[in-house]
Structures are given as C-alpha cells and as structure tokens.
C-alpha cells in the first residue's frame, strides 16, 4: 500500500499536521501527502450529504493573470467564453492542446476587469504553469500563487448557515458560481459559491498562514451541525455521484471535450482559442465515443481501466467507478461507442474475467442540491 511511483518527497498543505493529529489516513495523491479518510469514506460522504463537511483542498493550484491583455490571453487559452464573466463570477473551463485533447479542467475567477484567477488540479500545477506562461503571452503578468494560497471547501446543507455565522459579509446573497471578498473568522477570503460535491456550499481561498485558524474555527462553529473533516476518498465518491469528471481518470490529453460531455464549456462563437479547429471538426463529424454514467445490477465495483462489453464484444472502458454511498449502488463512468450511449442501454463490465451486467443511466446519479438560482 505504498506509492512507489514517486521518489521526490511529498508536498504538504499548510494543514498536513492538523490531519495527522486528527487521525487521518494519509496517502500520496498527485505528489501530495493528503488525507484519504478520517473515520471512513462512507460515513464522511453521508455527513456531507446530510450536514456539512470540511475539505482541505489546498493542494490545488491557483494562477493569476493581470494586465491589459488578460482577457485576450484567457480567451485564447480557455475553451469557455471568459468575456461573458462579470467581475465576481466564476466559470468552469478547459485548457486544450492544439489537437483538441485536454491539458486540464479549471475554474476561472474574474477578480477584476483585467484580472483573472485560474484554479487548476494539483497534479497538473507544473504542467499547467508551463502551458499558460508559454502560450499566454501578452501585456499581462502571470503569478503562481499556489504556495501562498490555502483552499478550504465547506459543503453540505448546513454549510451556508455555518459560513454565515463566521463571515463579516452576507454570504447568503452570493449566487452559485459567484464569489465575494470578505472575512471568515477574521481571515480574509475569497468566498466562492462553488464545489465538487453536488451540495450547496463554499470554497474559501485564504492566505496559507491562516489556514489552521480557519480550519479550527469552522470545525468548532460546525460542531453542533455535525460537521466532519472529509478526505479525498469521499471527495471522489461525492464527485462521482454527480458525474463530475476527474482529470487523469475521465479526461486527459487523449480525450476530447465533446466526447467527455463538456461541449457546454466550449464556445466557438467567442473567437479563436487553442484546440478550436479539431474540436469543431469533431462536432461537425459527430463523436465516436461518449462518456456515460452507468449503474451495476449487483454490488461488484467497476474500476478505472476495466473493459465495457456489449454482448461479449468490446464497447468501451471504465474511467471511474465506486460504490456510491448516497445512491447505495455500484456506479461508474466510462467511454462507450456513441451508438451505445443512450440511457437504458444494457452493457457489461468485465470484472476479474467475468461479465457483470450494467445499464446506462441518467446523470447525475444523485440529484444536485447546489444552489443554482
């Protein structure tokens, strides 16, 4: 159970010792020493669905770009239309290669008219930094603020009231995929109504040096609500129940946004961007495979890399899978031939040499509770 793929020392978030002290099981993830669980993945998952969970996601990367050409640069790098973003708004977007594959998925924050922040996946920070600074040149300055920034997510039905009790601003008026600046427990923060769980809640960008203070303030203030610290294990099962893609599992350099069902963040009408031509060519030709959600007839668990079959013949491949603690079924995501992507299609997952029945289902697997209006 040790990671042998990495020889360099694991990176630590400012809360690493807090997790160890809390009894977390630590694992290497994307080069980071991260808590996979505190008490148990299923219990943590259900705590987020029923009450509130606190996540340390400080391993994620944050880049800022500021200057006269900032918007033009972001428009060239990202697939979504950043010009449609107001200051105070957040947008899900993609960085693509010229061939149409995905460099990373990210959330884009418009901090000011000519000032943006990109939040990128932890395992991609170095790659993305090279990518944006190489391909995002112009009259603007890039700044990698990943090290000095900590990121806490508070998610679940009790999250709004909890953050409000500690905040000096009215967070109840912050709409989904919007943010404000304010103080939470005295810590200056970007208070962003975003998340990766399908629950209402916030992501709080704060100075790394204040992370411990805010962590304990939220844990104390949320005690009566039943708040729990949540590890990466439950973060993964929560996002899977929403069919949110995880870079490296469901999307990567070899997958096209359209196949991944992310065509809604590709906006060709906005002008040119890296990867536009091959993505639009594929849109015109039609995709050959699609990322679908499926559920298993029985408990056996589909996992990344398992084969998907149709009547014994190759149909595709599983990209993510787990027992879904809230839907109480084994569920998965995978790429299948486009003609097998319709809801209701019967498939099999090959698990240890045996075909186990599955069915393409409507997603998300679990209805989203995020505050969308």
């Amino acid at each position, binding site marked *: *159970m040790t990671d042998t793929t990495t020889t360099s020392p694991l990176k630590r978030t400012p809360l690493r010792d807090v997790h160890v002290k809390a009894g977390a*099981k630590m694992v290497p993830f994307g080069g980071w020493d991260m808590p*996979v*669980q505190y008490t*148990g*993945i*299923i*219990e943590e998952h259900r705590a987020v669905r029923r009450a509130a969970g606190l996540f340390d996601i400080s391993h994620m990367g944050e880049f800022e770009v500021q200057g006269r050409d900032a918007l033009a640069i972001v428009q060239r790098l990202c697939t979504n239309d950043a010009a449609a973003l107001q200051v105070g708004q957040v947008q899900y977007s993609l960085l693509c290669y010229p061939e149409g594959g995905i460099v990373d998925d990210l959330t884009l924050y418009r901090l000011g008219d000519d000032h943006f922040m990109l939040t990128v996946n932890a395992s991609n920070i170095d790659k993305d930094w090279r990518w944006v600074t190489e391909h995002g040149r112009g009259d603007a300055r890039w700044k990698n603020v990943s090290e000095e920034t900590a990121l806490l997510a508070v998610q679940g039905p009790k999250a709004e009231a909890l953050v409000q009790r500690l905040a000096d601003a009215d967070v109840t008026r912050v709409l989904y995929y919007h943010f404000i600046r304010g103080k939470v427990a005295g810590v200056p923060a970007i208070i962003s109504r975003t998340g990766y769980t399908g629950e209402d809640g916030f992501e709080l960008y704060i100075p790394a040096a204040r992370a411990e203070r805010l962590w304990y303030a939220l844990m104390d203030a949320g005690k009566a609500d039943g708040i729990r610290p949540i590890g990466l*294990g439950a973060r993964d*099962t929560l996002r899977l129940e929403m069919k949110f893609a995880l870079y490296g599992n469901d999307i990567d350099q070899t997958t096209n946004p359209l196949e991944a069902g992310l065509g809604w963040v590709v906006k060709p009408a906005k002008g040119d961007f890296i990867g536009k031509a091959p993505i639009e060519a594929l849109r015109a030709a039609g995709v050959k495979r699609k990322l679908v959600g499926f559920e298993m007839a029985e*408990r*056996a*668990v589909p*996992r990344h890399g398992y084969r998907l079959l149709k009547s014994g013949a190759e149909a595709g491949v599983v990209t993510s899978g*787990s*027992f879904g*603690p809230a839907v109480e079924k*084994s569920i998965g995501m995978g790429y299948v031939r486009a003609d097998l992507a319709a809801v209701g299609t019967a498939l099999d997952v090959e698990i*240890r040499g045996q075909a186990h029945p599955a069915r393409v289902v409507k997603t998300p697997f679990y209805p989203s509770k995020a505050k969308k209006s």
Partner: protein
Amino acid sequence: MSKVPAELKYTKEHEWAKVEGDRARIGITAFAQEQLGDVVFVELPKVGAKVAAMKTFGVVESVKAVSDLFAPVSGEVVEVNADLAKKPETVNSDPYGQGWMIVVKLSSPKDMDALMGAADYEKLIAGAGH
C-alpha cells in the same frame, strides 16, 4: 490497535480460521478490515467449491481497493455467509463474528498447524502498522 482473539489461527495475509470439529470457519481480521476501509462487496465461492491453503478463494472490495482473500486451509466449502451479499459492511463492524465468510471442511487437519497463533499474529501487525 485492534484486539486479536487468542483462540483463532491466522495467516500472514490477515485471514483468521477457527476450528469447529472437522471444519474451519474463515474470515478476515480486524486489522485487515481497518486497512481496507469500508467494505462494499465480498465475492465468495459457492458451497461445494474446493479451496486450497494459501490460494485465493474470493475477493473483498472496499471503496478504494480490491483485495484477494487467501484460504488458510484446504478443503471443501460447506457454508457461505450469504448475509454479506446484502450487508458487506458487517465485515467492518464484526470481523470475527457476523462478518465470517466461509466454512471449510478440512481435507487435512494438519493445515491448522501451519497457521500463526495470536501472539505471532500480533507481532506481525505491530510491525505492519504505521
């Protein structure tokens, strides 16, 4: 650290075996279930199947991992814990009791002598802990 029942025998792969006449009841240890985390699926052989000492007889899946189950002894499966199909989490909550997996009719009672006693198993997991 989890308690290791003195009356059971153990494998280095963290299964336990309990002699019941000419049979052995088999499960995984408290240490094993702690390491695995939440058990969500247990794949077991059918009654009548043959199992061989230190060969796999099934699979236990947690949210994060798939692990093989190794038979402590050789013999024929005479009972299977069907409750685990609906409640695999019993392996976490009661690994030495309701979370048992199979009962094997021993083909060679001497197999039991090759297994570890509780004291040796305790030493093994003390060394494996973090």
